[in-house]
C-alpha cells in the first residue's frame, strides 16, 4: 500500500498554513460527461490552482444536491459511470499526480452495495485520500469509520447552520482530514452565502477542533471565495464549476474555462489573505 496517501490532506493544509493561504477545494462530478473528460478536467483544476480535488460519485437520487449537480449526476450515469469506475479514474489521475489530495463525495448506497471493506481497501489502493458521504452522519457511521481508519482514509463530515455547538464538538471528534461547513440551509448551488454569519460559525467550530475547516454550498464567485478565505481554512466550490462543464461548447473549451476560473478564484483568495496579513 502507498504509505504517503493518508498524509496528503494533512500535508497540503500544513504547507498552505505556512504560506498563510487557505485551500481551494474544487468539486466536479466524475464521468460528467465521460471518464476521459473528467481526467482532463481534474488536471486542469490542478493547473489553475486547486489545492484539493473533490470528486463527486454520481447517484440516481442525489437528495442534498441542487439541479446543477443533479443534472451532472444524470449525465454521468447515462455515460455508464459507477463507483468502481470512479476508483479507476482516481488510479488514472495518480499516474501523473501523486501530490494533490483527492476526496470522494457522494451518497452511501453505492458504497453499501460494494461493501464497506471492499470499498475502503480499493479506494486507498486507487489513491483516494478522504471520503465524504453526504447521507452518513456520525450517528450511523461507526462501522464505516472502522474500515476508513484501517485503510488510512480521512472521514470528512458535514456541519450545518442547524447544527448546535454541542454537535460541532461531537462531530469534530469523529472527523479526520477536515470538516466541511455547509454555509447555507439548502441544497448545493442554492443560495448566496452570508459571509458574516459564516465567519462567526467557522470561529465557533475552530474553537472546538484543531482540524481545518472548509466552507462550501453557495460559493460561486472569486469575491465570495476571497471573503470566505479570510475566515476558513478551505473554500469549496462546486456548482459553479459544474455549470462551466455543462455550458461549454466542447470538452476542450471546458478544460480551459475551468482552469481560468479556478485561477481567478485562487488569485482572489491569495490576494485577500495577503491583504489581511498586511493590514
Amino acid at each position, binding site marked *: 500500500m502507498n504509505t504517503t496517501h493518508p498524509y496528503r490532506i494533512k500535508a497540503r493544509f500544513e504547507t498552505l498554513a505556512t504560506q498563510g493561504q487557505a485551500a481551494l477545494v474544487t468539486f466536479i462530478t466524475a464521468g460528467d460527461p465521460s471518464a476521459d473528460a473528467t481526467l482532463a478536467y481534474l488536471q486542469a483544476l490542478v493547473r489553475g490552482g486547486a489545492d484539493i480535488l473533490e470528486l463527486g460519485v454520481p447517484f440516481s437520487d442525489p437528495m*442534498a444536491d441542487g439541479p446543477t449537480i443533479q443534472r451532472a449526476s444524470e449525465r454521468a450515469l447515462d455515460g455508464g459511470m459507477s463507483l468502481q469506475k470512479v476508483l479507476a479514474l482516481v488510479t488514472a489521475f495518480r499516474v501523473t499526480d501523486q501530490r494533490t489530495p483527492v476526496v470522494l463525495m457522494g451518497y452511501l448506497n453505492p458504497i*453499501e452495495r460494494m461493501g464497506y471493506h471492499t470499498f475502503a481497501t480499493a479506494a486507498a489502493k486507487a489513491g483516494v485520500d478522504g471520503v465524504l458521504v453526504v447521507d452518513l452522519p456520525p450517528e450511523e457511521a461507526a462501522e464505516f469509520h472502522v474500515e476508513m481508519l484501517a485503510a488510512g482514509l480521512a472521514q470528512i463530515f458535514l456541519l*450545518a447552520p*442547524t447544527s448546535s455547538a454541542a454537535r460541532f464538538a461531537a462531530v469534530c471528534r469523529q472527523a479526520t482530514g477536515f470538516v466541511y461547513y455547509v454555509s447555507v440551509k*439548502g441544497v448545493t448551488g442554492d443560495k448566496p452565502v452570508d459571509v458574516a454569519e459564516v465567519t462567526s460559525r467557522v470561529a465557533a467550530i475552530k474553537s472546538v477542533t484543531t482540524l481545518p475547516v472548509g466552507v462550501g454550498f453557495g460559493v460561486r464567485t472569486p469575491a465570495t471565495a476571497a471573503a470566505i478565505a479570510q475566515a476558513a481554512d478551505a473554500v469549496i466550490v462546486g456548482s459553479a464549476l459544474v455549470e462551466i462543464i455543462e455550458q461549454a461548447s466542447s470538452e476542450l473549451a471546458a478544460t480551459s474555462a475551468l482552469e481560468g476560473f479556478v485561477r481567478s478564484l485562487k488569485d482572489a483568495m491569495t490576494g485577500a489573505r495577503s491583504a489581511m496579513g498586511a493590514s
Partner: protein
Amino acid sequence: MNASSDSQLNLADASPSSFPDARGHFGPYGGKFVAETLMAPLAELEAAYRECQADPAFIAEFERDLAHYVGRPSPLYHAERWSRELGGAQIYLKREDLNHTGAHKINNTIGQALVARRMGKRHIIAETGAGQHGVAAATVAARFGMTCRVYMGANDIQRQSLNVFRMKLLGAEVVPVTSGSKTLKDALNEALRDWVTNVDHTFYIIGTVAGPHPYPEMVRDFQCVIGRETRAQCLAQIGRLPDSVLACVGGGSNAIGIFHPFLGDTSVRLIGVEAGGDGVETGRHSAPLSAGTPGVLHGNRTYLMQDGSGQIIETHSISAGLDYPGVGPEHAWLKDSGRASYVAITDEEALKGFHALTRLEGIIPALESSHALAYAGKLAPTLPKDHIMVVNLSGRGDKDIPTVATREGISI
C-alpha cells in the same frame, strides 16, 4: 376489548417488538441517513412527537378527529358473496376506503398536522404518488389553516389528474417533479430538498412508513388505529382473531397499520402484497421485498430496487401509489424475522381483483388495494371455509377509473 384500551396511541398491543430502538433502528434497518442539515430538525421533531405521545390532550384530540372528521371506526365488512364465489376462506374487508378523502392516508396526516401545530409550523409540504396522501395533506392543511405544497412526479400528475385538481381545490400548490423517473421517489427527493432549504418554518408530512427516524415509527403509530380496530372488531363480530391479514405494500403504511397490533398474535398470518408490475421475473415491477436487496435511500436502510452498482432503478406498476423502489424499514425487519411474508401481484392480476370486488360486492377498490384483493382471490380458494381472512381495503378506486378505462381501451 373496550374502546379506550383500544385507542391508546402508545402501543400497548402485546407486541413482541419494541422496535424501533432509541436510534430508530429495526434490527439492521431504519436509522437516520440524512445530510447534517436535517439532523437537528429530526431531533426537534422526535422531541415534539415524544411530548405528544405522553400528552392525554393530544391523544384525545387525535381520537376526536378520527371519530368525527375521518368517520372512524371504519367498518369490518364480511364480503360474503365474493367469499362464496371463491369457495374457501371467509374474506372480511377493513373499509379504509370509507374514510374521509377515501383512503387510510388521512389517519396519518391528521396526526402529523396536530404535531406540526404544536411545533408552531404553519407551512406543510408533502410528497405524493397516487395523490391520496397529497389530498389527505391538503385536506388537513385546509382544516388547520396551514399553507401546503405537494410534490408530485410529472408522470403521476398525468395518470392522477383528478387528485391533482382535488389538491388545488383544497388550496394546495402542486409542484410537478421532472427529475429522475418523474414518480414518487423523485417527489420524495424534491420534498427533502424543500425541507432542507426552508427548514425553519416547514413541517414535512411524509406519507408512508419510510424516511428517516422518527417518521417510520410516527406514521406507524398514527396508522395503527386500523389494526387496533380490526382486532377488536374481529373479536366482537366473529368471536375470535383472524387467521390471516393481507394488505398491499408500497411504502407500507396501510400494511404496517393493520399488521402491527397483531404482531404478538402469532397465530395470525401477516401477508404483504407488493406490486409485481409486468411480473417479478421481467424486472419491470415495484417489489423490493420480493426481489430487491438491502441498501440506503431516503434516510433509512431497507430493501431497495437497485442495480449492481447501487443505483436505484426505475420501478413499474399500474398503481402510482405502489410505484416506489423502497419500502418501510419495519417491513424489511418483519420479512427477515419471518413474522410477515411478502408476495407480488402483477398489474393484470390486480385488475382482475379490481373487477371482482366491483362486480361481486359493489365496491370499487383503489388499484393499490386491488393487489391485496387479488392475492386474497388466489389464496382463499386453497383455504378451509372457516378460515378468517382480513384484507385491508386501503382506498377507494374513483381516482383509478381513468387508468382502468385507458388500460382497457375504453374512452370516457
